């Protein structure tokens, strides 16, 4: 574990793309930053994506250099596998209590050789691959993980000591316990990201029940070169799908499940995934069932037109329900809006539900910030100060304020870092210090 000082200028909570950018921008202005991530690796959702829209650049090729820069920046201290317990204002800024979860591996001794992982006799579903892939009970989080340090999942450990026996640096430490860490921070940036509504939130779509109804982030992993199968195949039997459906707004723009807002990114990632599927599997049909296509950013309308030009079928329709056939194909009962509301039953090999985006973290009293009606952090002056939370000295970046794409998250991270820098400057001037 990195040496932790007692005081930092800035605390950034969340080391996805927005948190990393905010930390880099703040540290680049000469402030000492503590960057805290709850997962065993930094990188957030972005490091697991295949491509970004509309450029179709490799996502990890953009994300991993930032991860490395964060890890090596002399003014950034990185704390992974750590969660915020409590944050409160003091006379000198904020008093922060963090809890570092036990990895059962001594970070400074682990060389990331994965010999423990290869020696382990148990395989378990890999969260990074949304359960489609496997890892051993002790494992390096993923190929691009930073830090490249193993973590042991005690839930699946068979206690045979195979990992400790294989470790060349004697870094397996079964005595580790959750560790409380207390620091002071002058300003705080919350970049706590997103998660998706549960796959089974709309029972009529069979998510979580039918194995070939999947999560769009799982599809990203299937399309990634380092994904769980190495190819796009359906989970029921490894068949290369010849017909894939995307069901849009499957958990957003829907008051019945408490997500009345548009998740903004779903139309674009469905189009992007469709293009990538067609590039690798030109004979595979991709159909996107949608209420309307929202191509909201620069170059996005052209991207939509390109997708249509490349053979993606974009169908205005309402999917009423999905049922499973005996061979695990999926039958969609669909109301085709552009055909006068005609109801049809259409078979597909695989269905991706474009699930709604919800906040990745809720403070539940851990931090003194207010939450908006939609569950994301409240921004009292959205037009004038889009990175300022309801609490002075606490700033917000990325999807923590609402669904947005990667460019917007990065821009907002820069704004949050600038607001935090100005706030720290004012605080230090008031205290008579010199920056």
């Amino acid at each position, binding site marked *: 574990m990195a040496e932790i000082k007692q005081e930092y200028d800035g605390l950034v909570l969340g080391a996805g793309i927005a948190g990393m950018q905010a930390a880099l921008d703040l540290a680049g202005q000469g402030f000492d930053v503590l960057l805290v991530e709850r997962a065993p690796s930094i990188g957030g959702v972005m490091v697991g994506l295949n491509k970004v829209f509309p450029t179709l650049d490799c996502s990890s090729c953009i994300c991993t250099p930032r991860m490395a820069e964060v890890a090596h920046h002399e003014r950034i201290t990185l704390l992974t596998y750590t969660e915020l317990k409590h944050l409160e204002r003091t006379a000198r800024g904020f008093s922060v209590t963090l809890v570092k979860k036990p990895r*059962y591996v*001594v970070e*400074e*001794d682990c060389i990331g050789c994965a010999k423990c992982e*290869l020696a382990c*006799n*148990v*395989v*378990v*579903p890999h969260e990074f691959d949304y359960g*489609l*892939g*496997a890892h*051993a009970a002790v494992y390096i989080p993923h190929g691009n993980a930073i830090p490249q340090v193993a973590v042991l999942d*005690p839930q*699946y*450990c*068979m*206690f045979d*000591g195979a990992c*400790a026996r294989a470790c060349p*640096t*004697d870094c*397996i*430490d*079964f*005595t580790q316990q959750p560790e409380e860490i207390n620091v002071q921070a002058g300003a705080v940036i919350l970049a706590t990201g997103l998660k998706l509504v549960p796959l089974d939130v709309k029972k009529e779509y069979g998510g979580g029940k039918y*194995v070939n109804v999947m999560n769009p982030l799982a599809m990203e992993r299937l399309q990634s070169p380092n994904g*769980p*199968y*190495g*190819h796009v*195949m359906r*989970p*029921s*039997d*490894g*068949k*290369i799908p*010849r017909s894939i459906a995307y069901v849009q707004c499957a958990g957003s723009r829907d008051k019945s499940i408490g997500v009345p807002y548009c998740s903004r990114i779903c139309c674009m990632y469905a189009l992007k995934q469709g293009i990538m599927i067609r590039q690798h599997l030109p004979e595979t049909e991709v159909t996107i069932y949608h209420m309307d296509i929202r191509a909201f950013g620069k170059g996005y309308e052209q991207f939509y037109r390109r997708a249509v030009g490349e053979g993606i079928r974009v169908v205005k329709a309402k999917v009423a329900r999905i049922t499973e056939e005996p061979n695990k194909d999926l039958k969609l009962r669909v109301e085709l809006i552009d055909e006068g509301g005609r109801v049809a039953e259409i078979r597909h090999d695989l269905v991706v539900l474009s699930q709604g985006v919800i906040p990745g973290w809720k403070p539940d009293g851990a931090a003194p910030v207010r939450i908006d009606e939609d569950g994301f952090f409240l921004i009292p002056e959205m037009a004038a100060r889009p990175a300022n939370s309801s609490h002075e000295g606490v700033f917000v970046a990325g999807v923590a304020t609402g669904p947005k794409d990667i460019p917007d998250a990065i821009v907002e991270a820069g704004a949050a870092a600038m607001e935090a820098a100005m706030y720290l400057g004012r605080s230090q001037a008031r205290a008579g210090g010199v920056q």
Partner: protein
Amino acid sequence: MSEIKRNWREDLKIFRERMGGVTQERKDWQKEQRDYSKAISGVLEKGARTVPEIAEASGLPSDKILWHLMAMKKYGKIAEAGRSGDYFRYELKGGQS
């Protein structure tokens, strides 16, 4: 690097107790893994097969066959061996069984 010399065997005993020992759930999980691994290896000893072919020969569900097969592939026990229609074929790597 830390200078602490760990007595991991002693530590492991305490850890095992603290985590509730090897529960029936853990035993069942490991047994399933062993059974699938053995069944897959047994079928592939006869030559490269697709997931449905392995499932049919072993009588085990194809989704679980795929999951365990991919775990075995990740850890170097299985390799791809071309395609058969809409399915990839898999073989034991280096004659392993």
